[in-house]
């Protein structure tokens, strides 16, 4: 491949050994965030994943800072995984602790977590110049490589979370969208909501560390937004959103290879394109329905 030659898909798969971890990480993160995104989108919590992914980003940046600035390179406490998880869990606990009427304080807490996370990450980035590329990768998902250990952790976390959610999806759906009726019938709504929020927090912290904050936000919103328009029920939406997310995560990485794009932006654009097509396809259907309603009865 010369400098001006456009790479081909065949070349991508020829170098599969090199690209397998980041490409599969995109697909796995897409499937996981797509599934969980249905709860985020239908629960009107779109900003939740943005705020939690920024909090996770700050956790990773702080871990780097502890390693470099405070000589804690060998300490497990200064691991980026620990940093991301701790900050995401703290932000989630703040949200769960909100008892304001109709969750009115929740928006403010989400805004706080998003802004403190984003600004904090950029500020800490100036103190860890040697890792500034890592910080950019974290925020925009521009990483082209993923370490095998990181991939294995992501795959394990995704498998566990998806298995739990697939198994308990009937209870999870009722706890999320009909909590009062579910409580009256004796479903453990409190425990199910803790599992739901806990898995969203864990998924975001792990996915942010591997693929970056921007694609995590995109993959938790866009596939679910498309799937909930297409699928006949919430259960089908979950599977469809996971499929769209997996496709966007993988195809976005391939597109980044083919057209030399930043990976996170490419994954986001693929997910946005799918969602855009679904939204556009609804326009003629809605117009036809309106025309039918307006047409005087024969």
């Amino acid at each position, binding site marked *: 491949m010369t400098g001006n030659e456009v790479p081909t898909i065949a070349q991508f798969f020829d170098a599969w050994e090199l690209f397998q971890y980041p490409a599969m990480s995109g697909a796995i993160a897409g499937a996981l965030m797509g599934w969980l995104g249905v709860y985020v989108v*239908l629960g009107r919590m779109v900003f939740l994943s943005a705020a939690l992914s920024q909090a996770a980003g700050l956790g990773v940046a702080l871990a780097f800072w502890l390693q470099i600035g405070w000589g804690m390179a060998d300490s497990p406490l200064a691991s980026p995984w620990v940093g991301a998880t701790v900050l995401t869990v703290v932000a989630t606990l703040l949200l769960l602790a909100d008892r304001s009427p109709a969750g009115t304080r929740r928006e403010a807490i989400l805004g706080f977590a998003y802004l403190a996370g984003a600004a904090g990450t950029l500020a800490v980035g100036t103190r860890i110049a040697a890792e500034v590329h890592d910080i950019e990768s974290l925020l925009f998902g521009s990483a082209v490589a993923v370490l095998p250990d990181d991939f294995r952790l992501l795959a394990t976390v995704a498998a566990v979370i998806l298995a739990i959610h697939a*198994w*308990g999806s*009937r*209870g999870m*759906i*009722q706890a999320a*969208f*009909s909590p*009062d*009726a*579910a*409580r*009256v*019938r*004796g*479903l*453990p709504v409190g425990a199910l909501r803790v599992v739901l929020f806990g898995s969203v927090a864990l998924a975001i912290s792990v996915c942010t560390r591997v693929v970056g904050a921007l694609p995590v936000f995109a993959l938790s919103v866009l596939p679910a937004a498309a799937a*909930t*328009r297409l*699928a*006949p*029920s*919430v*259960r*089908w*939406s979950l599977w469809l959103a996971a499929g769209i997310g997996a496709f966007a995560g993988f195809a976005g990485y391939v597109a980044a290879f083919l057209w030399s794009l930043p990976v996170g932006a490419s994954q986001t654009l693929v997910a946005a394109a799918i969602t855009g097509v679904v939204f556009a396809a609804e326009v003629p259907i809605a117009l036809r329905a309106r025309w039918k309603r307006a047409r005087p009865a024969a």
Partner: protein
Amino acid sequence: MAMKTGPEGQGALLRVEGLRVGYRGRALLPPMTFAIRPGDLWGLIGPNGSGKTTLLRTLLGLHPRLGGDMERGAGVRVAYVPQRGDLDAAIPGRVLDVVLEGVDRGWSFLDPLGTLRRRDEVHRALEDVGAAALAHQRFRELSEGQKQRVLVAGALVSRPDLLVLDEPTSAMDHAGEHAVFDLLETLRTSRRLAVLVVSHHTALLMEHVSHLAFVDRECGAAVAGPLEDVAATPCFRAHFTGRGFEHPDPAVAAQGGAA
């Protein structure tokens, strides 16, 4: 939570004695005592802000009680149909999916084949409410009356002994309101269900219910019992005077029980 079981509480599905409801230690209503039995059709009425919702949520176990006793009979199953306005129209679902949601109780959602085993029951519930033909339609595309029927079917599949409905006739025309109450009457007799309905439509409620719980914070009323007894209370009579309700007992009505 042991309660004395007097004759009036025998065979009750839900029994409350001296029940106090409210928030942060402050009671909204005077203590209430009543029992709901199989086949009863109860109405819960009161003006806006009267404490109806707090009482309802307390009876359902969704809100802690301030005092008194509340006991469900052994193995009694309760199903709750919230207001249709509480449902999010953005949530996708066919009629069948909405009804299937009602199948689970406790931890049964962990049984992956649970809904498959109950398919027949789901179809029977849809038939019982006259909505079998709607099974594959999208829920959000139904009329208000059809939606209410489907929600009732969703509550029936969990095989309740007591069915609680919050404002089931809101946003309906006159015919739709009557159709809902006719359906509840039918279910009450065919399934020997006890039904508790919260409604603002007092006149309509009076035509159908056998028992009434009436709450009004302004005159400190919280009374519950057979329709005739509640309708004879001074606060009730004062509140509904001139609102089209005729007391079932002509003697009481002649004394001013007409409302």
